[in-house]
C-alpha cells in the first residue's frame, strides 16, 4: 500500500492549480490519449460547464466529442451507458449530483447491472461526473451528498476526491477503468488550489486510502469536503496533546478497509465524518465493518458525524449548521478520546 502511495509522488513537473482545472486537465489528457473518450452534458461545450470544469474542451476536441445536450439527465446517462457498451468511453456530466435520481434507472439499473445481467458480454466503461455537496444557498434539491447510493447498488465504483491532485489522478483512473464510475466532485472544492503532477501518466489507484495525518489517539475517516475540516480539527486536538490519525478513503467502492482497520487496531478508537446525512450514510457501513472486525480491539464504540436528518435549507448560514463544522468535529474527537 505504501508502495502504491509513493507512485503518486510528483514526476517531472508539478503545477499549482485548482480542483476544477485538475479535473479539466484529466479529461483533456485522456481525450488526447484515447480518441474513444468523449463528453456529454448540459452546457459542457460552448459555456465550458456551469462550474467551468470543461472549459476549452469544445475548442480542442470539437462538437462530436464534447456534446451539449438538452435538459435530459435520463438521456445523458442512458446514452452514456449505450455508448459505453458499444466501444466508446463517455464522460457524462450532470450539473448537480442530486440529478442522479432523475437518471436513477440509467445509473443503478443499467450502468451497474448490464454487464452482470448479460453474463459479462457487455462492459460499461462510463464515468458519470456529479458535482456534490453544499455550495452556499443552492437549496435542498441542489446540495445533497448521495454517494452512499453507489455503495448500495453493486456494480458501480464510487470516487470522492478531496484534493486537486486526487481529483486529477482519480478521474484519469476512472476514465481508464473498464467499469462504470460515479465521480463525486465537491462544489465547494472547485476553487481550492493544490500541487498537481503534470505527468500524463499520473494516476491515483482506486481502493487505496490516503493517510492525511498520522496519530495514535483516534482514527478519523473523513471524505470529500470533510477531509480538510477534520484535519483542521485534528490540529486543534494536537495543540491539546492528542494526535489524531486522519484517513481519506478517496474511493468508497472499492473501499480500502485494510488501511482503516490497521489504523483502528492501533488507536482503538474510530469516528467517521461525512457531509452526507448521518442516518444510513457511508459512515454507518464503515462503522459496522469496524465493529464486526475489531470489536475486541476497540476502547469505545465507533462514532459517526454527518448531516442532520433534514433537507438542506436554502439559506447559506442555516445550511452550514446542518453539516459537521470544525469546532463540532473537534468536540466529538475530545469526547470520543475521553470515553
Amino acid at each position: 500500500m505504501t508502495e502504491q502511495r509513493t507512485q503518486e509522488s510528483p514526476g517531472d513537473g508539478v503545477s499549482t492549480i485548482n480542483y476544477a482545472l485538475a479535473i479539466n486537465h484529466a479529461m483533456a489528457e485522456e481525450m488526447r490519449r484515447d480518441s474513444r473518450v468523449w463528453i456529454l452534458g448540459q452546457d459542457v461545450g460552448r459555456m465550458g460547464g456551469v462550474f467551468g470544469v470543461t472549459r476549452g474542451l469544445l475548442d480542442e476536441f470539437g462538437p462530436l466529442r464534447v456534446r451539449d445536450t438538452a435538459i435530459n439527465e435520463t438521456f445523458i446517462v442512458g446514452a452514456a451507458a449505450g455508448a459505453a457498451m458499444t466501444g466508446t468511453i463517455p464522460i457524462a456530466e450532470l450539473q448537480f449530483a442530486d440529478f442522479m435520481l432523475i437518471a436513477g434507472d440509467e445509473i443503478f439499473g443499467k450502468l451497474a447491472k448490464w454487464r452482470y445481467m448479460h453474463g459479462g458480454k457487455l462492459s460499461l466503461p462510463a464515468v458519470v461526473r456529479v458535482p456534490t455537496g453544499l455550495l452556499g444557498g443552492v437549496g435542498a434539491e441542489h446540495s445533497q451528498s448521495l454517494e452512499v447510493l453507489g455503495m448500495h447498488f453493486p456494480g458501480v465504483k464510487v470516487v470522492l476526491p478531496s484534493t486537486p491532485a486526487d481529483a486529477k489522478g482519480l478521474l484519469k483512473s476512472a476514465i481508464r477503468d473498464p467499469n462504470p464510475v460515479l465521480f463525486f466532485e465537491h462544489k465547494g472544492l472547485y476553487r481550492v488550489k493544490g500541487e498537481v503532477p503534470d505527468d500524463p501518466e499520473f494516476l491515483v489507484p482506486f481502493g487505496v486510502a490516503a493517510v492525511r495525518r498520522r496519530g495514535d489517539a483516534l482514527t478519523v475517516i473523513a471524505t470529500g469536503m470533510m477531509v480538510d475540516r477534520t484535519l483542521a480539527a485534528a490540529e486543534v486536538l494536537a495543540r491539546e496533546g492528542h494526535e489524531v490519525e486522519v484517513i481519506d478513503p478517496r474511493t468508497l467502492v472499492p473501499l480500502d478497509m485494510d488501511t482503516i482497520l490497521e489504523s483502528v487496531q492501533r488507536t482503538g478508537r474510530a469516528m467517521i465524518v461525512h457531509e452526507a446525512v448521518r442516518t444510513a450514510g457511508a459512515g454507518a457501513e464503515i462503522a459496522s465493518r469496524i465493529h464486526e472486525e475489531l470489536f475486541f480491539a476497540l476502547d469505545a464504540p465507533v462514532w459517526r458525524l454527518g448531516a442532520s436528518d433534514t433537507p438542506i435549507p436554502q439559506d447559506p448560514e442555516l445550511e452550514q449548521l446542518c453539516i459537521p463544522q470544525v469546532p463540532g468535529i473537534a468536540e466529538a474527537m475530545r469526547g470520543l478520546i475521553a470515553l
Partner: protein
Amino acid sequence: MASSAPRKRAAPVKTEVDATRATDLYRTVARIRAAELVLQRHITEHGFGGFWHPGLGQEGVQAGAVAALRTDDYMFIAHRGLGYALAKGMSLESLFGDLFARTVGSTGGKGGGTVHFVDPERGVLGQGGAIGSSFVLGAGAAISGQMLGTDRVCAIFFGDGASSRGTWHESALQASVWKLPIVWICENNGWAVSARISEQSPTENIADRASAYGVPGVIVDGQDAIAVFDAVTEAVDRARAGHGPTLIEAKTMRIRGHYEGDRQKYRDDLLVGDEIPRDPLGILREHVPASVADQLDDDARHEAESVLATVLEAPRADPSIIYKDVWS
C-alpha cells in the same frame, strides 16, 4: 422536415415481391412461430420459472424489421417474444438456454424466465427490464457507431405502452437534433398489460407524434412482413445516409396474454380458438409456393422441438455464477 401526418405505407404489390426475400421471411416467421408454440405448450404443461411474454402473432413485425438490418447493426429488443433475436442470427439454443437458465444460454446460465438475450457480435444489445429504457441506450449505441467511423444503424423495438415513457421524449428530441442513425420500431399490439392504447394515447396513432420531433412517422401493417421490411429498409437507408431517425409504427395484435398464463379477464377482444387473424404466415404464403412453405413449417417445428429437448437436458450453471461478472 417531416410532413405533419404520418405516412401510411401501402401493401406491397404481389408481382413486385422478390421471391427469395419472401421465402427468407417465411422461413424466419415460421421459425419464430414454431419456437413460440413449443414454448407455449411447454409452459402450459410444465409451468415456467418466470414470465414468458408470448410474441405469437407479432412475428411478422419482428422478422420483417430485422431482415432490413445488417448483422453489425445494433439492436435493442423488446420483451415480447424471441423473434427479434432469432431473426438477427442468434441460435435458438442460446435463446431457449436463457429462458431455462442453462449454460448454453447467451448469458451463460444467469438469464432465466424473462428475456435478456445478448449477442454483441450480432449487434443484439439486450432489452430494458424497465420498459422504455432502450430509447436512451440505443441513442448511445448510435453515437458510438458514428464516433467509431462506422455506418451502423441502431434499431430500437418497443411497445405501444413503452411509448408513454419520458425516455421516449428525451431521446426523440435529442436524436432528431443530432440526426442519429436510429430506427424506432413500435409494435403497437393495442395493449400494455391491461391498458388499452386508447387509454394511453390521445391520438389514434403513435406515429402521429413523429412530426413534433421533426422525424418521419410511418404506419405499416405489422402482419405483413414484407411491408414491414420495406418500411424499415427505407428508414435504415435514411439513417445510414445521415438523415436521422424514423419512427415506424407497426399495427399488430397481442394474441395471447401479457404473459403466458395471464387469464386476461380485463380483455373484451379475446379470440376463440387457435386461429390467428391476419396471420403473418398466411399473408406471406401469397408470395411463397405452398410446397416450399409446408417444408419450411416442418423444418421449423422440428428445429424448435429438438432444440427444446436438448436445452432441457443441458446443465444449469453452478451457483457460483451469482458472483461472476459484477465487475470487468
